[in-house]
């Protein structure tokens, strides 16, 4: 067992689970989607991205790119939320919530890919 691998797997899976937690619920119902969960998903996703830095293998490269996609989508979701809550006159409307959640849904897909790579890498190594 390798502590580095534990931390690596932990952050990748945590990013996916937090993202999922934010995503589930009715698409446009603000009460089903907690802003703190989005924040946590974004932070953990960023940490997971940095953890993937510096791997020279092909799989490492794909890992990094999925994480970058997730970051991008979550960041976009956060920006939409910021715009809705502070800039747009109508506030956080159901349409805006739908947009935020669908963005995070895209990020969720990237995170799922990341988890699949993690699993397949583990299976490939057989140790």
């Amino acid at each position, binding site marked *: 067992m390798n502590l580095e691998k534990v931390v690596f797997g932990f952050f990748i899976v945590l990013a996916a689970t937090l993202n999922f937690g934010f995503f589930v619920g009715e698409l446009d119902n603000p009460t089903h989607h907690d*802003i703190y969960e989005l924040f946590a998903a974004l932070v953990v996703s960023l940490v997971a991205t940095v953890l993937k830095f510096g791997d020279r293998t092909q799989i490492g490269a794909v890992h990094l790119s999925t994480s970058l996609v997730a970051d991008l989508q979550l960041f976009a979701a956060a920006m939409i939320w910021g715009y809705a809550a*502070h800039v747009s006159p109508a506030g956080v409307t159901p349409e805006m919530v739908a947009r935020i959640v669908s963005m995070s849904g895209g990020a969720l897909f990237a995170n799922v890919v990341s988890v699949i790579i993690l699993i397949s890498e583990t299976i490939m190594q057989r140790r």
Partner: protein
Amino acid sequence: MNPLPRHQSIFFLILRRMRAPLILLIVIMAVSVLGLTLAPGVDAEGKVQYLSFFHAFYFISYTATTIGFGEIPYAFSDQQRLWVTICIYLSVIGWAYTLGSVFSLLSDRNLQQAFAIQRFSRAVRRLREPFYLVCGYGETGRLVCDALDRLRHRAVVIELDESKVGEIELQGYAADVPAIDADARNPEILKFAGLTHPHCVGVIALTNDDASNLAVAIAARLLAPKIPVLCRAQGIETATTMAAFGTRHVINPFQEFAEMLALALHAPAAWQLTNWLTGLPGTTVERYRNPPRGAWILCGHGRFGQQMVSAMDAEDVPVTIVDRDLPDDLGHRWVHGEGTNPDALRQAGVMTAAGIIAATRSDIDNLSIAVAARELNPSLFVILHQNQYANRALFEAYDADINVVPSEIIGHECLAILSTPLLVPFLNELRRTDPAWCAGLFERLTSRLGWEVPEVWSTRINLATAPALYRRLMRGEDITLAALLRSPEDRTERLECEVLYLDRDSDDHRMAPDAGTTLRAGDEILLAGKPGSRNSFMLAIANEHALNYVLTGTDLPGGWIWERLSRARKAAPRQVDGERSSTHRVRPRA
């Protein structure tokens, strides 16, 4: 391995080392923002308000980066201020740690080395003109690089010593000289330095270590078999090994000098001529005193001394050897003792000797031998061996008849080989020709061109270098050297250069061909002339108009329209004279 993976590895190294500080920064920012959204605040009406993520992130961003715009959107409550105090210190720690790791990463020796190799190999890859690869930037390397730069050749340098690489930047060469401090024995480094580059025209191995030079020669032989290699070799075994696998030129400074001395003893004029032709460009050669035949004394029977003894033996000049060590050959007179001791010198017969060679390993000993010997016999011919270039001032002050500086010998030889390939066969031929003829040639050349080291160049008459002359010769015209060697400015003046050697086929070549010799396409000629004459000559053989003027004295019409017009005029010959005189250019007459 090509440089790309190395470049990527630098990038990955940076990323990997930056992982911890980046994660720390992210965590600190996240904790600060989260804490700030949880800390209760009050608005202007006294209602409890929480900061949104947007405001919290905004506030923490400008606080962490020490910009500090103040408390928004309302003045903070004490709970919020307490948390912000913690955040400020957290963020200071985070930034200090991140910046610290960035700077330690940048000053990392491995990383800097990797960057240096990267920069160097990029500079070499971008070279788009012929260049020489010089291994070793010692005294000899510097001489060769200086001369290459003056001859407008590019050079790439590999040198083991970092401080000497720094010197290159201070030298102020006209062209940029890419240099790296690395071991030339490493074939990877040689590749980065352009050994396999299409524009690499020669490899010059001049390190002071025979094994390194040998390694360079082998690498060049295997990786770039077509590129000529020049190697310095101190030991005879190394020289043999190098020659065995086809190193084009092996330069052994002591052997070189021994051969020159032998030449000086039996054909002084050939020796003087060689000195004059192979001097460093831009210097003036003084007329040396010819070494006399007679009894000689050799002090110091080392590597240089042994070469000198065999050269003297070949010329039947008696030598007395003065050395501390016991003799291992009994064919010569031996005197035990130090050359610095006047008694030993007297015992060796300094009063009746013709010359003395101070050839010990110590420069100070050599100088004191020379001073002591001249004191006893002022008419002695003194040959001094200078080991260290740094002692140059002392040796110049003493003014010996011949000063043997190995680095200079190698430098001169390198230049002769590199700049003018035809010079080496000419000089070899010179050693075999009649001494009286050599003397005549030498007198003629120096009276015409002066004592300054001439510009020496060789050129082949082919389509690439001499298109105009080549076409005329292929048309079957007879062109003599006398007709060709005229100034393209004013054809009544002769160009200030002389043809030394003409190489026609593998077996047909002429030493100093006379002015009536006709040229043929494919000839290769060696010329020596005053600075500037080379450009005039190259212009005349390459440019149709210049060549026509030099040979016939008339100007060719330039451009398509004038050519058509002149053809029309030829058809009507009457008009020609009138038109011609009006278009005649006014030329200054000397």
